[in-house]
């Protein structure tokens, strides 16, 4: 395995460090609440939690501009929150209410938002990559200096679509930032049990795409790497591949007894909790005290309480509207 890039990135200033911590805590608490609501029967279907992986979305998305695009996977609550889709509309979507960001049509796996250029929530592994290629192609053809960030898990590299898209993105020099979230397990299948070559960056570099492995538990490293990569992509150098080495603390979804990994392994990774790690570094740098943390937790708790209240108060779409949006109601823009 290639060594993880050591950026020895210094902590950003207090304000930005607090922002990163705040964003990670928003995801963590939002999802803890979601799991609770799932157990209470308020949320149904599949619910895939991102807990443990927060540093990746927070770091990578911090490097994007407002008019860049994001294509994500079915484990995308964190990306959606960080991108600026309101906790209210995400929670309402998890409830299946029509006030949800996908009008109650998508649920947890299919969060969409035109205003923030958030192109889903794709629940076919690898299925979002071709879309990202196309969004980037549209930008290139229209001479817009925009970047499309495409998130996918390491399981996607086994799909043919991954290889087709690596090739096409490199061949056409498309402005795509490939963000591979390597949490080591494709559902229950360990990377080493499914790939003959487990160095994922090699796969990208074999297509002439520059690639870095990043410590995905270190939000500062994630942001720093993403900023450098985005700069290269935006300057027209073609795609970039970042492998964020991370770990999912919770089950794959809500129905997973986790027979494929040991409790000890999970505990070891929890020692590298991205939130605790940043907290600790900030405290060491005297950038964080109990008051700061208390303030953040209070703000996050209020935001999530609001979101639950909003979702509870939301309305069910009338069944007469069941087939609305199968086809467009207006001409294309």
């Amino acid at each position, binding site marked *: 395995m290639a060594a993880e890039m050591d950026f020895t990135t210094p902590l950003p200033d207090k304000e930005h460090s607090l922002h990163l911590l705040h964003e990670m805590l928003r995801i963590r608490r939002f999802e803890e609440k979601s799991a609770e609501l799932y157990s209470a029967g308020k949320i149904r279907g599949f619910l895939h939690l991102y807990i443990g992986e927060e540093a990746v979305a927070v770091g990578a998305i911090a490097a994007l501009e407002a008019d860049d695009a994001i294509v994500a996977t079915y484990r995308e609550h964190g990306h959606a929150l960080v991108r600026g889709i309101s906790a209210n509309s995400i929670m309402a979507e998890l409830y299946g209410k029509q006030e949800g960001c996908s009008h109650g049509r998508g649920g947890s796996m299919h969060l969409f938002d035109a205003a923030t250029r958030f192109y889903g929530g794709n629940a076919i592994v690898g299925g979002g990559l071709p879309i990202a290629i196309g969004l980037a192609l549209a930008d290139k053809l229209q001479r817009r200096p925009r970047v499309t960030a495409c998130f996918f898990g390491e399981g996607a590299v086994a799909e043919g679509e991954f290889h*087709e898209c690596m090739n096409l993105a490199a061949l056409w020099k498309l402005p795509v930032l490939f963000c591979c979230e390597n949490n080591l397990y494709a559902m229950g299948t360990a990377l080493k049990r499914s790939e003959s070559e487990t160095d994922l960056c090699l796969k990208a570099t074999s297509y002439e795409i520059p690639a870095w492995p990043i410590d995905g538990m270190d939000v500062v490293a994630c942001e720093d790497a993403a900023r450098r990569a985005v700069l290269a992509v935006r300057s027209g150098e073609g795609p970039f591949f970042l492998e964020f080495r991370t770990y999912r603390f919770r089950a794959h979804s809500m129905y997973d007894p986790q027979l494929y990994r040991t409790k000890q392994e999970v505990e070891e990774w929890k020692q590298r909790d991205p939130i605790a790690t940043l907290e600790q570094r900030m405290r060491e740098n005297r950038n964080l005290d109990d008051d700061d943390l208390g303030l953040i937790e209070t703000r996050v708790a209020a935001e999530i309480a609001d979101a639950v209240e909003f979702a509870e108060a939301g309305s069910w779409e009338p069944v007469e509207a069941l087939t609305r949006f199968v086809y467009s109601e207006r001409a294309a823009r």
Partner: protein
Amino acid sequence: MTSQANLIRTTYREAMRQAIREAMQRDPRVFLMGEDVGRYGGSFAVSKGLLEEFGPERIRDTPLSESAFVGAGIGAAMGGMRPIVEIMTVNFSLLALDQIMNNAAAIHYMSGGQFNIPLVIRMTTGAGRQLAAQHSHSLEGWYAHIPGIKVLTPATLEDARGMLWTALEDPDPVLIFEHGSLYNMEGDLAADAGAVDIDKAVVRRPGTDLSLITYGGTLDKAIRAAGDLAAMGIDAEVIDLRTLRPLDTATIVDSVTRTHRAIIIDEGWRSGSISAEITARIMEHAFYELDAPIERICTAEAPMPYAKHLEDAALPQPAAIIEAARKMVKGDG
């Protein structure tokens, strides 16, 4: 329509090429991509000469990556372009079925109407050229099963010339199936022929004794059969469905209500086919109008054979249409 003086001699292939050319000229967002559409000139020579006219950015050769370039078309459409994606043949489209079904057909709905996908996918369909079991099938009926897309089957020069622009103007994904045996079809077309509607079936030959309901590559066979039947004193009406989704039930029912008999000619396999769907709709809407059971003439339920005599035997042929019609009308088949 214009006067006889303004007719030009053309082929289906040239009409389609002219449609692409005109779309490229009218709208700078339109571009064509697919395997061998550029340098090679199109595997069926539809796009021959367009590379020289519009350049490699808009006449874009792709690698053999159906899933990636169809998905790229979806992304580019969401990114503001008007892509025409060419898939060499319908059998190859199965490699992109994930993108067509899970993304193109679903995203408008899944996103609660936020994103629409003005994408056109063209592909060759059908048999009759001894291309055997991986280049000859008629899967347009399959695609017509999918809500969220539209399925067009141009069978005439007017439709080859006119359906593309309307499809590009449509806010939703449109699949155009071009029967391979039609490309060399020659005839007169109005010099100023342009866009046509894509949601209505058309009576190509009015008749009173029975309705021959068909589309695409079998339209000509039905019209020839109707000519022979006329000589036998049977006046057959021929319906060209033109669009398989949405299916124009009203035109079918109206015809059957007048003729009281129907034969459906479909190059797809019989089981679970568009012919089965049409049969069901007639039963639902015109059961009491029928004087005889509906007949279907479909392709034999086998992978397409190579040998000419076997392929001919597998496909719907005018002789079978005539025999069924005689039996149905005169009871003396």
